[in-house]
Each structure stands twice: as structure tokens, then as C-alpha cells.
């Protein structure tokens, strides 16, 4: 027989003590917050940045590359290493003595490329580690979720690799900023090159990953290719969890299409492209033309995964290490000498985002998110690798040149997998902030939130 020591009175007493204990820290933080005015105001000699990237799961390699770039950025901010893009950045506010004289520390979180896990890790970094901003990530689903959280918490979110129109479209937030390009820009840059290389009379078949990014990319590419005379034969949604695409590829053979557009990313893209090549699509002659495959969003890591299969396949990128400008050379040298490989385009975006945030704090003279927002809005800069860039005030989207790239025919080394076909000028990929694909007139940033 078991004997219980619990009495009603005892339980009540313990409950009251425990309740007070739980409430106590909130009382203190509430007081300190109201005194300071914004979430996680740095009080000591250090300031903490939060790097939220996929460290496990299928995008772990991508996340690891982002992390390397962010660590490099912190080094440069603290005056270590060769300074990288601090030497080429047109804004000269950063001096290599941290941010506003405070040494930069960082904490990392694992998004696992899952929205709920990413929100949880961002929340921990904000509430427990006192992170003043959240940077990075490699999925639009995750970016939209974390951006919402940062808006509520009153910290700045600097998005990493997110390509869906929604991130700075219908889901845009005042505390969120995107340096990476988006699906609309890919389509606007690709369409003229496709018309020039493949002709204006083509029949396209789309395979599309069934989530926010896939939908907006398909919508963008269909609109821009149809505008130049292409016909869309079919657009099939494929489940994100698909691994073998052969049953989706087989119908392409009999559809009368002569171009296959793969709105896939990561493992999806590697597998669908491999399957398409296996089925001999690239050797076929349809409607009297060579069959072609287009992968609108490329990354170096995917290109490496797809191996031989990407030869000659067209796509677009936010940045490529072969880009020859002062900022790009400085970044590639710094990253390459430290890590022994060239940076990926998601690494470059995350590096640039850390520097842009730090610079905005310096120029604003405060870490207050609303001051940072003001400093970043309408900010024009150069020297971070992409050429002349504008952070547009209306939707917090960066506008800069977009690269159209092609899988290299004869790579000379393992990093030389992609070649730049064209650098599309920013003007050609610019759209009005109330564009229907970006939420129309209803889309709004809302008010900046300083939290606390």
C-alpha cells in the first residue's frame, strides 16, 4: 500500500510559493524593459546577435555555410581578420570596433527547416540569450514564420535564403528585411535570356514544389514567359516529400512540351533534375527544337549535388563568387582563405545582412529596432558583392542586379559548376510595392515594434 504525504494545505502552500517564483522573473524583466525602452537593450560591453540556420535536416549543409559566413562577419565587425567587405562597403560607419563600441557576440539556433522549430529556437535566443536581432535561415516557410515572431517580440529579422514573393509581399513586416532576391526577380531576369536562347515560341511544362515558395515561383515564371509568347502546357504540383519524380517526368514526354521548368529546391531539385536527365529529356527533339530544362533558382550546393546533370541548364542566382567587383573579390578572398572554399550565395546574403544591420545601428546611433528600421529604409549602398543596391522603404526588399547562370559545360575545378550568362540590371527586375503578386494595395509593413 502506498501512503501519500500530500495534504490540501501543503499543496496550496507549495503552489503559492511556486507561482510567486514563476512570476518573479517576469516582474523584474517587465521593470527593466520599461526602463530601457526596447527588447534586449545591450547594457554591458557586449551585444548578442542570433543566427538561426538549419543545422540539422536536409538543408544542414546550406545552414552550415551560412553560419561560417556569419562568424566571419562577426570577426570583421570586431576588427579581426582582414576586414573583408568592411574595406569596400560604401558606408564607412563601421570601424572594426564592434557595433556602437560594443563587442559583438553571437548565439546560434537550429531551424531544422521547420517553421515551429525555427520559431522555438528564435524565441529561445531572444528570451534567454538576449539576442537583439535574428539573422539567417534557408526556407521561405521558415522566414515568414520567424519574421512574424520577431515582429511581435520587437527585434529585427534579417532574412537569409528566402525566395518566395510573400516574404516581402503579403507577409512583409516592419521589423523584417530581405537582402536575397525573390521569385518575381528570377522570372523577370530569366525571361529575356530564355527568349534569346530558346526562342519566343516554346511550350513549357512546370513541376512545382507544393508550398508557398513553389507557388509564387511558378506564378512568376508563368506570367513572365507567357508575356513573351511562351505557352504553358501544364503545371503539376509535387509533394515536398517526393523523392522519385519518374512518374511526374514520364507524362512530360507525351505532353508536347519542349521546355521543363523545375520549381524545385534542395533535394527535390537534385532528384527531379537527375530523373529528367535519366529519361533522356535533354536528348529529345520536340516540335523541331531541342528539349531544354530550366531551374529558376540555383544554388552552388544544389549544383554540386546534381553533378553532371546540370550542364547547360539555365537558372538564376542572387550572387555568385565569380562575380568580378571589388566587394565580391574582398569577400571571396576573406572567406576562401579562412575556409578553403568559395562562399555560396546564401553565405554571401547572410554575411551582407550582418554587416548591413551593424552599419544601420552605427548610423542610427542606437540598437533600438525602430531606429535601425529607419536607417535601413531607402538605404543605398555598394561594396558588399552585389554592386549598387537599394533597401526599398516600402517593403524592405533589396533591389540589385540578378545573375542568370548556366551549368558549366567544362568545369575546371569542383567549385566551377556554374557560369554567369548575364547580369540583369536592377531596373529590369524592379516592380511597384503594390504589385498584385506581392499582396497588392492591402500589403502593409505595419508599425515597427521596439518590444519590451
Amino acid at each position, binding site marked *: 500500500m502506498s501512503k501519500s504525504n500530500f495534504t490540501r494545505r501543503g499543496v496550496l502552500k507549495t503552489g503559492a510559493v511556486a507561482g510567486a517564483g514563476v512570476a518573479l522573473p517576469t516582474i523584474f524583466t517587465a521593470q527593466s524593459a520599461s526602463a530601457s525602452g526596447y527588447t534586449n537593450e545591450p547594457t554591458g560591453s557586449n551585444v548578442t546577435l542570433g543566427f538561426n540556420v538549419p543545422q*540539422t*535536416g*536536409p*538543408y*544542414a*549543409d546550406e545552414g552550415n555555410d551560412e553560419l561560417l559566413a556569419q562568424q566571419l562577419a562577426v570577426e570583421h565587425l570586431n576588427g579581426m581578420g582582414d576586414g573583408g567587405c568592411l574595406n569596400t562597403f560604401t558606408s564607412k560607419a563601421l570601424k572594426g570596433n564592434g557595433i556602437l563600441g560594443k563587442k559583438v557576440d553571437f548565439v546560434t539556433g537550429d531551424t531544422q527547416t521547420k517553421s515551429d522549430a525555427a520559431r522555438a529556437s528564435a524565441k529561445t535566443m531572444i528570451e534567454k540569450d538576449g539576442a537583439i536581432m535574428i539573422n539567417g535561415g534557408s526556407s521561405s516557410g521558415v522566414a515568414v514564420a520567424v519574421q512574424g515572431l520577431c515582429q511581435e517580440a520587437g527585434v529585427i529579422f534579417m532574412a537569409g535564403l528566402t525566395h518566395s514573393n510573400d516574404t516581402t509581399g503579403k507577409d512583409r513586416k516592419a521589423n523584417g528585411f530581405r537582402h536575397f532576391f525573390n521569385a518575381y526577380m528570377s522570372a523577370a531576369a530569366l525571361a529575356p535570356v530564355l527568349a534569346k536562347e530558346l526562342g519566343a515560341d516554346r511550350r513549357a511544362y512546370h513541376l512545382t514544389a507544393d508550398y508557398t515558395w513553389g507557388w509564387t515561383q511558378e506564378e512568376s515564371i508563368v506570367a513572365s514567359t507567357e508575356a513573351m509568347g511562351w505557352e504553358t502546357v*501544364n503545371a*503539376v*504540383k509535387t*509533394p515536398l*516529400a517526393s*523523392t*522519385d519524380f*519518374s*512518374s*511526374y517526368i*514520364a*507524362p512530360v*514526354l*507525351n505532353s508536347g512540351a519542349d521546355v521543363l521548368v523545375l520549381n524545385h529546391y534542395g*533535394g527535390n531539385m*537534385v*532528384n527531379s533534375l*537527375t*530523373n529528367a536527365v*535519366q*529519361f*533522356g529529356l535533354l*536528348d529529345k527533339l520536340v516540335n523541331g527544337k531541342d528539349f531544354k530544362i530550366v531551374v529558376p533558382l540555383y544554388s552552388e*550546393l544544389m549544383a*554540386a*549535388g*546534381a*553533378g*553532371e*546533370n546540370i550542364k547547360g541548364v539555365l537558372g538564376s542566382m542572387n550572387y555568385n*563568387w*565569380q562575380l568580378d567587383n571589388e566587394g565580391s573579390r574582398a569577400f*571571396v*578572398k576573406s572567406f*576562401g*582563405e579562412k575556409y578553403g572554399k*568559395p562562399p555560396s550565395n546564401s553565405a554571401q546574403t547572410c554575411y551582407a545582412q550582418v554587416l548591413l544591420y551593424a552599419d544601420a545601428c552605427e548610423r542610427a546611433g542606437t540598437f533600438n529596432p525602430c531606429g535601425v528600421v529607419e536607417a535601413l529604409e531607402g538605404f543605398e549602398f555598394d561594396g558588399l558583392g552585389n554592386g549598387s543596391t537599394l533597401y526599398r522603404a516600402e517593403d524592405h526588399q533589396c533591389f540589385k542586379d540578378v545573375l542568370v547562370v548556366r551549368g558549366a559545360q567544362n568545369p*575546371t*575545378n569542383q*567549385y*566551377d559548376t556554374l557560369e554567369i550568362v548575364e547580369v540583369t540590371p536592377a531596373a529590369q527586375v524592379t516592380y511597384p510595392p503594390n504589385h498584385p503578386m506581392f499582396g497588392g494595395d492591402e500589403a502593409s509593413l505595419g508599425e515597427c515594434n521596439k518590444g519590451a
Partner: protein
Amino acid sequence: MDAILLQILNGLDKGSAYALIALGLTLIFGTLGVVNFAHGALFMLGAFCAVTLSKLLQLSFVTIDATKKDFLGNPLKVETPYVEAWFGPEIGASIIDWAVPLSILLAIPVMIAVGLIMERGLIKHFYKREHADQILVTFGLAIVLQEVIKYYFGANPIQTPPPDALTGVANLGAWFGFDLPYPIWRIVYFSFAALVIFGVFAFLQFTTFGMVVRAGMADRETVGLLGINIDRRFTIMFAIAAAVAGLAGVMYAPINPPNYHMGMDFLVLSFVVVVVGGMGSLPGAVAAGFLLGILESFASTTWATTTIPGINQIIIYVVAIIVLLTRPRGLMGRKGVMED
């Protein structure tokens, strides 16, 4: 017509992988009574045997070519595989080219060893425990194996192409006067799977060892009373099942580039295959593997997905529900299995 044949071929192909994995699962369940959730990870390990061998064959020494520059502007380091240096460039290159078929020779001993270690080291301690415990421990093992592979090979898929002679497309319809292009390697995969399945059945049917195992599956106690060490034979069957999953993985590597979580993608479906085929029935597992592969393939056609949206993602489970409602023991299930 050719579109239908193409989807049947696709289905046979995917069905081969399901059938091989399900065959191993059923063998393990039928002999040892263990529900092995690490079986998908064994499939993945097989694929990584192919990756490992092709990486080993490409191990290179570095020479500096001062006439070319790398991405930092330093002299380019040129890598030459040892195999090419030892056997001459041509023979060396063709050895590297045939890495995947050669991996079969590596995978069989490796997978048998992995199977033996798994069974003796971990799973034998769970025979007397509940199925839930067995599922938890094997699922945990699967996660450990995945993470080990990720640690060494990264999270990205790794291209493991088939030999040049077996890439490309064969027009199967040419003999019958219509157009039916199909990748050669997928035909190889299907034929290979058929061979392995035939081999396992022949082994069980025509050897004394196989006969004892079949007797043990039917009545373990009686076989034990006859003085036969049935446990040892069952351990060997576990290793064989591991090897079958591994072989399925090796040959699958060129179809989709292997990554560390590919096993999980196949595991759940393979269990459905076992249940539909009938727990403990080897022919049932094979037949259900091919059947579900073909059904899944047809459900992914544009016609099917526009008629019933999402059918491609649920078809297998719908079939499983129907089969379990109408034939609770599965298509070829025997009485008394998992019914105590």
C-alpha cells in the same frame, strides 16, 4: 497506350525497391518476430556502400599545375586518382566508372556484418519485450545510423552515377513498333531486384538451411525440440535480410542521389507493403510491393491528380485501408500471425 506502359514500368521500378525492403522486413518478422524499424536505414547504408566505394576509388594525390589558377588566384592543385596512376588512365577511369556495380561486392560482406552486429548486439535483447519496445529501439537505431552517415557524408545528396555504358535511354517499344523510351539503369534495377528476390526464394525453397528456416517460421518450438539451433539460423536470416536491403540500396544510388534520410522515405511505405501483403507472407510482400508501386505511379499522372487532387499522396494508404477492411490478414496473410 505507351503512357500507360511507361507508368507500369515506373511502378515496377519503385515497386522493386519496396518489394526488396518489404521482403527483408517480412523475413525478420517471420523468423524473429521483431518489427524492425531500422530496415530503411539498412537500405540507406547499402546506398552509402556505393558512395563510399566510388569515393575510395577516386582517392587522389595532388600535383600543382602552375599554369592554371584556382579561385583565389593560387596555382591550381590537380587531383589524379591513385587508381588511374596504378592501372593507367584508361583502365583506371573505367574502374571508377563501374564503381556502383562493383559496390555489390563490398556491400554484401558489409551488410551481413552490420546485420550480425545489430542482431547480436542489440535486437536479441528485445525478443521477449513488447512490439512497442522493439519499434522504439529499432527506430532509435535508425536515427543513430542516419546521424552517423550525416556526420561523415554531409546532408546534401551525393551523385553516384551508373557506368557510362548503362546510362541513357533504351527504346523498349522499338520491337513492337511504338515509342517507349526508358532509362537503361532502371531496367537494370528491375532485373537485379527480380534476380535477388528469385535468389532468396530459391534459397529458402531448395536448400536444407532454407527448409529448416521455413520449418522454424511455422513452428519454432518443435524445430527446437528436434535439437536444431534455430536461433543461430534466424540470426543468419537477419543478416541475409540486411544484405537484401543493402543490395536494394546499392543499386538504387544511381536512380536518386543518396542522402542520409533516404531510408526513412522508404520505411513507412515498406511497412504498408508488408501489411497489405500479409504479415509473415514472403510472396505477399513481393506482390504487394509491385502492386503498390504501380498504383502509386498511376496516381501521380496528371489525369489522376486533376480528377482527385492529392490522390498521389494518399493512394497507398487508401488501398491499405480497403485491404485491411476486406481481408484483415492482408492479401496473402496466414492465419495465426500476430493474432495472439
